[in-house]
């Protein structure tokens, strides 16, 4: 065991980790940040997406020690300072971009990474970007619509299922 320290959602955070501890386990079990979900644990589903030094990564496929000294952002850090939902989260609510909600933390973190690099993505660009985020409930239409809306674009042309 060794001490691992990083900045999580703007605050210094540290905990104990073995070499083999995943970043997802460190966030959930050492720091109590259970908003980062572990769906498949095989790097396929994207429920565990967080940002490390500004880049979207799958926290189940990164070791906690690899994130030593990094800036980590999780779903817990996404709301506005007053606790209200941020633009992306609000758009997911407004456009029914979730049903069971299990994939939503990863979807929101991937959407945030996309919009940072590409503030006005096309529908096709959104769908391509979300290749690594699986949702078994919504059929994706409303997720895509929510991300379009969060980027300030017209969503009337997107299929309504």
């Amino acid at each position: 065991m060794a001490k691992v320290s990083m900045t999580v959602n703007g605050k210094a955070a540290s905990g104990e980790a073995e070499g083999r501890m995943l970043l997802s386990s460190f966030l959930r079990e050492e720091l109590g940040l259970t908003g980062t979900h572990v769906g498949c644990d095989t790097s396929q589903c994207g429920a565990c997406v967080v940002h490390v030094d500004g880049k979207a990564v799958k926290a189940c496929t990164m070791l906690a020690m690899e994130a030593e000294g990094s800036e980590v952002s999780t779903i817990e850090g996404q709301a506005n300072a007053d606790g209200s939902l941020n633009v992306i989260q609000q758009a997911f609510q407004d456009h029914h971009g979730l049903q069971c909600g299990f994939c939503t933390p990863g979807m929101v973190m991937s959407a945030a990474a996309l919009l940072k690099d590409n503030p006005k993505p096309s529908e096709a660009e959104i769908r391509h970007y979300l290749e690594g985020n699986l949702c078994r409930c919504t059929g994706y239409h409303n997720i895509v619509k929510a991300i379009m809306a969060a980027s300030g674009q017209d969503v009337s042309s997107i299929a309504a299922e």
Partner: protein
Amino acid sequence: MYEFEFEKPSTIAEAVAALADEDAQALGGGQTLIPTLKQRLAMPSKLVSLAGIAEMKGVSIADGVLTMGGGATHAEVAADACAPLAALAANIGDPAVRNRGTLGGSLANNDPAADYPAAMLALKSTIVTNAREIAGDDFFQGLFETALEEGEIITSVRCEIPEAANYQKFAQPASRFALAGVFVAKYADGVRVAVTGASEEGVFRWSEAEAALSANFAPDALAGISVDAGSMIADLHGSKEYRAHLVAVLAKRAVAALA
């Protein structure tokens, strides 16, 4: 995962020293290695992360040569490499995987369905390690086998920028690995055609197609030419004949994209 120690050196020399320990294993971005460890298919005593080594970063182009650090991520290759290789890197895995996975890690693994090996054979590459330089043509030695020695690290890769090049990939939709992928590169002294994902022997150069395209760089030049279906991979995603057909179609598409 079995237990292991973790080290993150900041220079190549420190990494080489750390890898001298028995059963030590280099860790690039971990996008293949960590899933492998989770399945307990490997049991290293120590992982040596190469992610903190500044001299293995960066992608640059100068005097017709593309130079990429072994630690460059797929996302960095997609952003800064020459266009055909950038396009290839932009379609590896998904965005989160591309932010972690590295060029050197992928090449050292030599997955028979990975994309980069086709580019390395087509783009006259040189694989640079801590110890020597290896011609791309000599580097890949069958499924998951390379010319690398135990503990040897890919520090950088050089490619000669072609006059034109294109990569066509038929992706397995779940894994996004190549069911077959064909990289065509046109140089002043001839055309190189490399095929990944298809052969039981791993990535290979398709010399018959190279000769035909060097004589006449047009999709029609490939009419009637095919790879031997007998040496193709057969699995639940496709038969030998299907993969042989894909190779021919993808090669024509790559040439058509450049014609």
